[in-house]
């Protein structure tokens, strides 16, 4: 063995995220092909079941640290002395990547859409300048931190699950205190994890119109996204915003409803595998890069599409 890849699993409501299973699959595949060990870590209160889930995908040993907060996670990662640390490219994942790079003094590469192994280390493929360029970068040393985008690989369990061991945190975070957790609405499906995103823009016309977007997302098994204009208008939460000042996503399918697709939005979604747009305006910028553009009124096309999907589902 020439080192270890440590996968940091992330949980939402105690459940391991889909992205974490993808990161574990990617790390395991690289480790198996290149003679490395793979291990996992979940730092969360009541993290046992998430730990068991992560071990199904790493195939290697998973540690569960029953604690909350950045210091517990950072301390547990440091103790494990892995050469490489892989995390999901989420808000928490990138915070951890930045802290760990500074604290451990090792390099960091983020938002991987693919990872290869060359000259004894990972080579990370990233999309920069809002998708205009793809870079491949490597670590100068023999260690590093990688954050991985959703849908970079398809999750696949290991032949045999790894062992899970539980421990308590050795470090705690006194610097930042959680004063309150406010529940505003049922959790919207995470757009970062989603394989299918149905997104609405100005053309959706209002919160009422977003019910149609929701309905189509449900019929396709996808999550709901939005443009900045829709978020600014208060039709949907900022957590669902895609684009330059929102989230950057790479789903298998991006269905854009009433979205013109200007550069600020394009940078958030143009690496989607398939882009389908429904728009009244044949000259909308999105028509230049979508795979399919249906010119028409979304309030007519989408009900027809939902009916067709329901008929097929029988």
């Amino acid at each position, binding site marked *: 063995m020439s080192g270890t890849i440590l996968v940091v699993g992330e949980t939402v409501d105690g459940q391991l995220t889909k992205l974490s299973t993808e990161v574990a699959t990617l790390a395991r595949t690289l480790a198996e092909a290149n003679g490395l060990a793979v291990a996992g870590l979940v730092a969360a209160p009541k993290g046992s079941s998430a730990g068991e889930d992560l071990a199904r995908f790493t195939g290697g040993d998973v540690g569960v640290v029953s604690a909350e907060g950045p210091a517990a996670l950072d301390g547990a990662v440091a103790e494990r002395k892995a050469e490489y640390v892989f995390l999901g490219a989420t808000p928490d994942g990138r915070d951890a990547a930045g*802290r760990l790079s500074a604290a451990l003094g090792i390099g960091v590469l983020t938002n991987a859409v693919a990872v290869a192994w060359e000259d004894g280390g990972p080579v990370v493929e990233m999309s920069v300048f809002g998708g205009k360029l793809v870079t491949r970068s490597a670590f100068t040393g023999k260690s590093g931190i990688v954050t991985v985008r959703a849908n970079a690989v398809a999750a696949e369990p290991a032949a045999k699950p790894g062992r899970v061991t539980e421990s308590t945190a050795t470090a705690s975070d006194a610097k930042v205190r959680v004063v309150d957790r406010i*529940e505003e609405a049922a959790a919207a499906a995470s757009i970062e994890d989603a394989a299918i995103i149905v997104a609405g823009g100005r053309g959706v016309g209002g919160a009422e119109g977003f019910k149609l977007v929701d309905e189509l997302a449900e019929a396709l098994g996808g999550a709901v996204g939005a443009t900045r204009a829709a978020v600014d208008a208060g039709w949907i939460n900022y957590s669902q915003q895609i684009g330059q000042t929102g989230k950057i996503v790479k789903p298998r399918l991006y*269905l854009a409803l009433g979205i013109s697709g200007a550069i600020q939005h394009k940078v958030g979604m143009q690496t989607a595998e398939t882009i389908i747009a429904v728009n009244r305006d044949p000259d909308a910028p999105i028509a230049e890069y979508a*795979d399919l553009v249906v010119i028409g009124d979304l309030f007519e096309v989408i009900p027809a599409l939902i009916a067709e999907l329901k008929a097929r589902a029988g």
Partner: protein
Amino acid sequence: MLRLVVLTKPVPDPASGAERLRPDGRLDRAASPAVVNGNDEYALEAALKLTEAQGGEVTVLAMAPSNATETLRKALAMGAQRGVLVSDPKLEGADAPTTMRVLAAAIKTLEFDLVLAGVDTSDGGMGVVPAGIAVLAGLPYLSWAASIEPDSAAGTVRIRRPSATGFDVLEAKMPALISGTQALGAPRYPSLKGIMAARSKEVRTLSLADLGLGEAVPAEWTTRLVAAVPPPARAATQVVRGSAAEGAKAIVEMLSSRGLLR
């Protein structure tokens, strides 16, 4: 009275659509005009509103080539009191760890209650620098702030951080470092008066030697570019005009042929 520092990175204007790398793999700064990073402008707006409400001063801080003073003038025109630019030929092509280290050292030369920054920048989009600076400067770190409420009397600051189901309220002692998003509110346009005033505001330039950072970061901490290629070209767009039923049928056919239906 609040003493605020805002990190304002000059980035190639994403709206120009002309960002590119030079043959040596470094950013071609001549290819597109520089602007203040979008998410940093939200942080700056929040800082200006806080000092307007509670009294205080805003210093903008950037690490960039020496001609970036022009970009910083825009931040000064919005209302910041002064600028600090860390500029050194040795910093050309600096990656995230170098940026963390330099900005952490620069912050330590300033007196402040809060450092604010955007959660990420529109050029590299890594979003790891604020967290790294906080570690190196020994500051509490509050990320993804949708609102910022300092309590000078108590010496603490609270933020709202969006969660999957709403938001968390986080609290830390000041001084602290906070990264923010668009949810902080739209940045103001500089007024003519602000633009005039910005011309005579102080922009101090610091070199690596001024910060006592002689040697480069250790090799274990850095990364190298292996290759840069254009993204794979997208296939030609299929355009469907006709009835709603025809449009729906075309969508179902594409979904079906690509295995995207349940």
